[in-house]
């Protein structure tokens, strides 16, 4: 009797092990989400606001309204791309906290092409696209080289380079690139109309939406259906085993980080060409960090980070309404985002470990 039950493990994974992980992670996610909202509401209550009313107003002004839904898609562009910038290197086992800096350098490089390269008008957008990716990619490449050649921890170097990138952009917008005709703000001149990212017909969402969706689809296909994607996952799962099976680990580390940086750079390019129409100081509102959170929340998978970026988009859009409705600072929703991330990280524990 006992013998039969034991030998059955050779032929079939226990049902519980096949269904449970999905069910558990879904249930866990819901719990974390609801729990985060309740705690958030309680914090607002302590502050003398009606927290549950605030949550309701966030809902009404984001998911429940046409305007809000469009705004969520507008946010999906930087959130989703910056999430992918963390998720792609994460599949190779790297922690990229540098989305913010890569975003800035992408925006910077795109701006250079548009305002200062003298490229023909018709090519401005395609070249800005390439430059955005190259700028972000090269910035992440610094981190990658430090990691591969000098064994410098990539999480730390990418994080520190964020501050450098912000200052590089500041230098240019306060200095050589400042709009000579405008007021004394740290802005470049406004981009020519040929360098504006087109808007999807009848909405306020730019063509950047196609970029982010294309990145998600590409991520899914590459990691699921290509040898390169498979090997990247092997590197992320056990670099020693990867090296020993003939995979050039250094190359995979470099390119996963560089591509991650390129994607964040595209977010920067989409921001200057689609939203701002110029480069200015403080162009990112923590997009790189929110993307980082979204990537961890979504488990670094294409569909996971898409959902997480939409969720953070909804919270962010809802947060804007708090400012108007409840008189709370818009940044108070950062509490909610952090609570959700904290819940996710804290519950990441394999409780179904089977021993014997």
């Amino acid at each position: 009797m006992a013998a039969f039950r034991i030998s059955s493990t050779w032929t079939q994974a226990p049902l519980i092990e096949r269904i449970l992980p999905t069910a558990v992670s879904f249930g866990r996610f819901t719990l974390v989400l609801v729990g985060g909202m309740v705690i958030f509401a309680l914090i607002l209550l302590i502050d003398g606001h009606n927290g549950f009313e605030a949550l309701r107003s966030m809902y009404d002004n984001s998911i429940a309204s046409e305007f809000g839904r469009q705004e969520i898609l507008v946010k999906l562009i930087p959130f989703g791309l910056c999430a992918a910038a963390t998720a792609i290197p994460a599949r190779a086992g790297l922690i990229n906290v540098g989305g913010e800096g890569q975003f800035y350098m992408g925006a910077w490089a795109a701006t250079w092409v548009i305002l200062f390269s003298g490229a023909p008008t018709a090519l401005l957008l395609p070249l800005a696209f390439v430059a955005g990716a190259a700028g972000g990619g090269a910035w992440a490449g610094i981190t990658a080289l430090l990691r591969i050649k000098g064994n410098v921890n990539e999480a730390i170097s990418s994080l520190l380079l964020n501050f450098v990138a912000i200052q590089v952009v500041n230098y240019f917008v306060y200095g050589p690139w400042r709009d000579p005709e405008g007021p004394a703000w740290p802005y470049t001149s406004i981009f020519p109309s040929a360098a504006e990212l087109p808007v999807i017909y009848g909405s306020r969402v730019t063509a950047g939406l196609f970029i982010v969706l294309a990145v998600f689809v590409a991520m899914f296909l590459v990691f699921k259906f290509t040898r390169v994607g498979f090997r990247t996952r092997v590197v992320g799962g056990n670099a020693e085993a990867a090296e020993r099976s003939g995979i050039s680990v250094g190359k995979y580390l470099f390119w996963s980080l560089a591509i991650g940086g390129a994607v964040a750079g595209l977010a920067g390019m989409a921001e200057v060409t689609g939203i701002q129409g110029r480069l200015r100081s403080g162009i990112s509102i923590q997009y790189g960090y929110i993307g980082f959170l979204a990537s961890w929340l979504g488990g670094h998978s294409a569909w996971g980070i898409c959902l997480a970026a939409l969720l953070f988009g909804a919270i962010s859009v809802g947060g804007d309404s708090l400012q108007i409705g409840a008189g709370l600072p818009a940044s108070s929703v950062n509490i909610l985002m952090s609570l959700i991330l904290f819940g996710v990280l804290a519950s990441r524990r394999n409780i179904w470990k089977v021993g014997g």
Partner: protein
Amino acid sequence: MTTTNVAIESIATEPEVEPSQAPVLSVRGLTKRFADVLAADNLSLDFYRGEVHAILGENGAGKSTLVKMLYGFYQNDEGEIILDGEPVDFRSPADARDRGIGMVFQNFTLIPALTVLENIALVAETGGFRLDFSGISKRITELSARYGLEVNPKAYVRDLSIGEQQRVEILKALATHPSILILDEPTSVLAPHEVAALLDIIRKLRDDGFAVILITHKLGEVFACANRVSVLRRGALTGGGMLVDFDQRSLLALMLGEHAATEEDPETSGARNLLDNGFALQNVTFKADDGRVTLRAIDIEVACGEIVGIAAVSGNGQASLAEALLGTGEILEGKVVIGGEDVTRRSVSARLGLGLSIIPEDPIRDGSVPDMTVRENISIDGGRGGLKSWVLRPAEVVRRALVASERSPFPLPVLTRRLGSLSGGNIQRVVLARELNEHCTHLVAYYPTRGLDLTSTRAVRRRLLDFKDKGRAILLISEDLDELRALCDRIVVLHEGEVKGTFGRDDIDLMEIGRLMTGGHG
């Protein structure tokens, strides 16, 4: 025929202390389920002071589950544990430690960045704010002297050999003043001479009145130091009693079932079918990743249709032989030749492409990806059998896994399971099945049977001989001298990165090999 070791057989002694009447620890009807697997099935056992009680069984027989319940690591679903006559309910290992149960784990639980003293202080500290290092240090010295557990308390654990680390583990267990000591497969990580030293220690502990519980699948160890034996198979107790009432055959039959026990170890058929050239290290001086020069002017040649064995005490450069052939680390001098081609400057993947296959020293650390499924792990292969196309077709991954599973020398775990959810033995089997594939023509096997149960061990040995008969070249690194003697055409002895001697199949002298392995002394 079994993994019995010469060193072990010669030193078996009778116990000097008579066991006391009442058992110090008993279990009654102990049962544990994991999902739908019955890992322990209604077990009833008694343990006595002054006795070594061996729990014998194959991998997955439920030995570890049993002792993890005794140590409070798992909670039993049914049955009871009775300590000194009263039922106990351990909620955690700390509970078990407080009641006088110590355990030495199979996988060490030491912290490499701390010293021996600090590691022991972690469990031995008495609860005050200030750590009483001098008191603990005194106790370590006392215990070391008493049981021959020589170790420097100030040394960092990361600098210790495996054998020394195990001594620290034992000291750590003893530092909590236990009366019952559980050793989980303690010899699976040790070299032959370390095994003999450990068995000595176990006998001293027994003679000092400890109730020692020894988990093992090696009959030699049971006969070398146990008084009492209980045999588990597939979670259930199949027999047991005083050791004097058993012999090797009867224990094997209890362990494996009547049919399997009568099967003999594999032998070569003698048929040859030579392939191209074998492989060789020619005058190789090698620097490992950590910067140490681990091989000096090594000349080893493995021809096709030949198994060459490497006998060495752990840490004498045998791991670097595999590294040098694979292409990790740095060749300072000399040439590496595989299949007649000089590959000294070629990449790992180029070498694997020539049909090289490596069974790593530590298959879990160096050969597996825990977050991937079994079948994905089988597809991680950069060699000839590797993925050809840049497109990864899921059907191809499934097919490759099925092929590997079919050709595997032993049954593989469920192919869709996450590797990390499996036991160490099963992970090892997956890596072995992947490396022992049909594309492999040049094999370096680092102790492939380490920790495997008897059935799988035989299957692996049969596969190695089968490879040899097919004209493949095999370098077998093993810490089991009997295994080398049974399988190899030649045995090369390595000490401190140098070849100390070579023995042909007909003049293998284990005592002389043992002497050379340890640097010529003893």
